[in-house]
C-alpha cells in the first residue's frame, strides 16, 4: 500500500473524484449546455462576428476542452504530491 493508512487512500480518491466531477460539469456545460441545449437562446447575443451559441458549438467548447485537460493535469500532480503517491523519477 502506497498510502500511509486507509483514511489517506480514501481522502485521495474522494479529492480525485471531486476534481473530476467538477471539471466534467464544466465540460458538460460548455458543450451540451451552451453549444446545444441553450444554443438558440445564446444566439441572440452577438460575440465578435459570431452568434454566441454557434461560437460555443463550433469553436469555444473545443478551446475549453483543451484548457480543462491541462488544469486537470496540474491539479492532479499537486494532489499526487500531497498524498505522496507520485511516481518516483527513475
Amino acid at each position: 500500500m502506497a498510502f500511509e493508512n486507509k483514511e489517506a487512500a480514501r481522502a485521495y480518491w474522494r479529492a480525485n473524484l471531486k476534481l473530476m466531477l467538477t471539471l466534467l460539469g464544466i465540460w458538460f456545460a460548455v458543450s451540451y449546455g451552451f453549444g446545444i441545449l441553450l444554443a438558440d437562446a445564446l444566439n441572440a447575443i452577438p460575440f465578435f462576428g459570431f452568434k454566441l451559441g454557434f461560437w460555443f458549438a463550433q469553436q469555444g467548447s473545443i478551446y475549453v476542452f483543451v484548457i480543462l485537460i491541462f488544469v486537470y493535469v496540474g491539479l492532479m500532480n499537486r494532489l499526487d504530491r500531497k498524498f505522496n503517491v507520485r511516481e518516483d523519477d527513475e
Partner: protein
Amino acid sequence: MSIQFWTFLIVGISFALYIGIAIWARAGSTKEFYVAGGGVHPVANGMATAADWMSAASFISMAGLISFMGYDGAVYLMGWTGGYVLLALCLAPYLRKFGKFTVPDFIGDRYYSQTARTVAVICAIFVSFTYVAGQMRGVGVVFSRFLEVDITTGVVIGMAVVFFYAVLGGMKGITYTQVAQFCVLIFAYTVPAVFISMMMTGHVIPQLGFGAELVSDPGVYLLDKLDGLSAELGFTAYTDGTKSVADVFFITAALMVGTAGLPHVIVRFFTVPKVRDARKSAGWALLFIAILYTTAPAVASFARVNMINTINGPEMAGTPHAEAPSWIKNWEQTGLISWDDKNSDGRMFYSGDERNEMKVDRDIMVLANPEIANLPAWVIALVAAGGIAAALSTSAGLLLVISTSISHDLLKRNLMPNITDKQELLYARAAAAIGICVAGYLGIHPPGFVAQVVAFAFGLAASSFFPAIILGIFYKKMNKEGAIAGMLSGILFTAAYIVYFKFINPAASVPENWLFGISPEGIGTLGMLINFAVALVVNKMTAEVPEDVQEMVESIRFPKGAGTASVH
C-alpha cells in the same frame, strides 16, 4: 511548374521521410512492437495520437460536411474532441497504471473472464477493420485525383508504404512516423486556410477570420453574409441547424463516448513512461487535434461563400458555364461536380430549391479549396500530401490494433499461451501483413456502406467498451456477470437499431420512426445507457467480485508504482 510535378516531389519527399524513420525505429521485442517500449515522450505521443486520430475523413471530408450542414456540423467538432476530456479524466491514467498492452487485456483481467476478453477482442477487430477500409480508399482517391494513377495503383502504393513501417517497426515505428505525418498534415491543412482567410477577411488566423468582416463587403460579417445567402437561395440559415436538439445531443454524445472507447486511441496511452505522462499526453493530443478542428469550421464557411459566389456570380444571376473556372471543369471530369442546365440559359445556378442546377460532392471542398482560391501549385500539392499522411497514419494505428488483438489477445492469452516472445512477434508481424492485404482489398473493392459503418464503429465502441471500462475503474464491486451482460445488451441493441435503419429498411429512417427522435448515428448513446443499467441490475443479482480483483482496482487508482507496461 505543374501541379503534378509538385505533387510527385512533395509526396515523394514525405514518403522517403516516413521510410527513413521506420528503418531508424525498428522494433526488436514484443514490448517495442506493442507499446513502443513504453518510453515515448508525452508531447511526441500527443502528436502521434493526433495523427492517429485525424483520419482521411477528418482531413478531406469534415470541412466539406460542415460546409453543407452549417450549425449541425458541430456534432463532429464537439463529438470528436470532447471524448479526449473523458479519456484524460476517466480512463487514460488508470489504464496506464494497470499496465498491460490492450483494451481486451484490461477487460479480461478486470472481469476475470476469458469470455469477456473474447467479446472485447471481437469488438476491437471489427471496429478497426471498418475504419481501415475507409482510410485505404482515401489514399486511393487522393492518388487518382492528383497523380493521375488509377485508384487500384494508389491503394497498392499506400499499402506498400504502410506495410513497410507497420510490419517492421510496430508501435515504435508507427509512433515516430506519425509524429512526422502530423507535421505534414497540419501544415498542409493550415497553409491554404491562412491564405484564404487573408484574402477574404484580412485576418491571418482563420479562427479569427471566421468571425470577421469581409474584405469585399466592409461592415458585413462573414457569417451574416452566409446566413443572408442561405435565406436568399432557399437553404436553412447557416448558423441554425435542421436536426432536432435531441438528435444533436445524442449524436454528439455517441461520438464523444465512442472516441473514448476506441481501442486504437486508448492503446496510445500505454506507450508513455508514467501515469502523469498519460494525463499530459491526452492534453497535448487534444491541443494538436484542436488546431485542425477549430480551423475546419472556418474553412467550411470560407469555402461555402467562395463556392456560391463562383457558381452564382456576384449578381446572383448565375455564371455562364462557358466561363466557369478551371477547377469546376477539373472536378466535372471526376464526376464529383455536375451541372444540369434546367432552364437552358447556359448559366450555372446553385440553390436549395427548384432553381438548383448543380450537384456538388461534399468531399471535394478541402481538396478543391486551394484551386477555388487560386493558390499556387505547391499549396495544392501540399494538400495532397497532407491527405495521404492523414490516411496512412490512421491506417497504421488501426493495423497495429488488429495485429495486437490477434497475436496477443487471441493467440498468446487465449489459444497458445506457451509461445515465446520471438514467436509472438512473428505472429504479430504476420497478422499486420494479412491485415494490410484485407484492408487494401476493401479499399479497392469498397463495400457500398463504408460511410454508414462509421456510425457503426462509434456506436459499438460507445455501447460496449466505454461502460465496461468506466465501471471497471470506478465501481470495484462490478462483477463479470454484470459487465458481460451489459456489454452484450448494449452492443446488440445498438447494432440491431443501426442494421435495421441503415441496411434492412433504410426507407423507414425518418425522424418520425426513430426511437425518441434519435437517428442511428446517435443511438450508441442510448445503447451505452442500457449497458450501464443492465450491468448494475445483473451485478446486484449475482455473486460478489473476488477479493484480489477488488485490490487490483484499488491499486490502479493512484499513480505510484506503475513501472512500464509489461506482459505479466
